[in-house]
């Protein structure tokens, strides 16, 4: 091949991307074996990672339809009134159960009337469950405050 022809030059970016993928795959493959790693993802799904940067760095890890995630939305605080009939079981949601309140139509359906909402999120993976209770408190002009009230 002469010098005018295209070369197979050095390509560090290719290697860098492959390293990134290998790191993600190792992370994924270790998750079922090490409960601590699964716990990190449980906290990721409920926006409870210790810091935003630590949460954000996990964002590229693919997690389509991961874990058993459920949520329940109430118009009154838990335990204030005992329901006559047992409430329906919480519904499953594909990933990030918090999306039920933050994402598009979920945000509209639950918050458009401007009233308080109390939500419980559960995420489970191979025997571990993380539960979070959140109060969405209206503060006026369509704004709500996200207050984490209970953690397990």
């Amino acid at each position, binding site marked *: 091949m002469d010098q005018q022809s*295209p*070369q*197979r030059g050095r390509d560090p970016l290719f290697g860098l991307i492959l390293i990134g*993928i290998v790191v993600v795959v190792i992370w994924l*493959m270790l998750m*079922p074996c090490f409960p601590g790693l699964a716990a990190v993802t449980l906290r990721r799904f409920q926006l409870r990672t210790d810091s935003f940067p630590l949460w*954000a760095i996990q964002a590229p890890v693919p997690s*389509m339809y991961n874990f058993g995630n459920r949520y329940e939305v109430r118009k009154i605080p838990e335990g204030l009134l005992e329901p006559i009939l047992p409430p329906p079981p919480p519904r499953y949601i594909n990933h990030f159960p918090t999306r039920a309140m933050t994402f598009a139509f979920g945000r509209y359906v639950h918050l458009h009337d401007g009233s308080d909402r109390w939500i419980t999120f559960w995420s489970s993976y191979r025997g571990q469950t993380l539960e979070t209770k959140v109060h969405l408190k209206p503060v006026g002009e369509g704004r*709500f405050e*996200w207050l984490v009230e209970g953690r397990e």
Partner: protein
Amino acid sequence: MSDQVCEVSPIVADDDNSLPVPGSGRVLSAYLVVQVCLFLGLVWKWWYFQQADQIYQQISISDSFFPDWLESPRVVRWAYLGSLAGIILGVLGMLPWIRQVCAAVVIATLGVLLVHQASYNDMTFATSLWVAIWTFWFSTRMERDEPAFLLRRGAFLARVIGSMILLGGAVGKWTPEYWSGDVFYDIYFRDRDYWVFNYLREHTQPETLRTMATWYSRKVIVVETVVGLGMWLLPAKIAAAVGVTIFFSIAFFSNNLLFSVLWCLVGLSAVGFFVIRQPAAEQTQ
């Protein structure tokens, strides 16, 4: 990485004596297919994002977990539009440096969408980000590498990304809630208005439907696991066919909105179809 790692199946070029010029021909076609599919995935839910934008304007949530600017409806809107503009300009720009700058802009905007309060949960932006990373790398090599070599590498990286994404789905389902079928029954079989599930509800008894949900779920787990672990090892053209089929069928048989997540992976998988057979002299090197 050695060429051996990227070795792929012997795929015959249209004419082995007239291999394409760098940055044109099959290389350009592969780039364009990926860009068109990436764009298609991002605009697939255009109406949805449009209505979501109005909702975010009317209802805001203040959560100390997110930085203020990542709760702003303006940021999510402009990041989304910026990603679309980046793809369009990259395709129309033609010049290598324009393609590269645009690909970097697409990565940056998708990165913002992936951590914004209004869009972090949408896997559209996770799969699109990986495809955008592939695009950026590819755009830096289009004018520099031999087309045959670049296409083999591009196809290899594409199927490694596809494998990783499938594996991400599989590992998260290695849990009793999915193996029993509870999650898919609740999300899809019970009341999802989609042709597959409407048909099954109309033509089966409730207890049969529940059993079908279990086997549907197990089928998904097995397919994602096996293909996730093995697709990257396949020859380019076979991997391309497997990837296009799997990613298309996941959406087609479960949820129309999932095409926003998967079109970009259909396009990325298709890169394998463009791989050119190496000249005999090079194969022996």
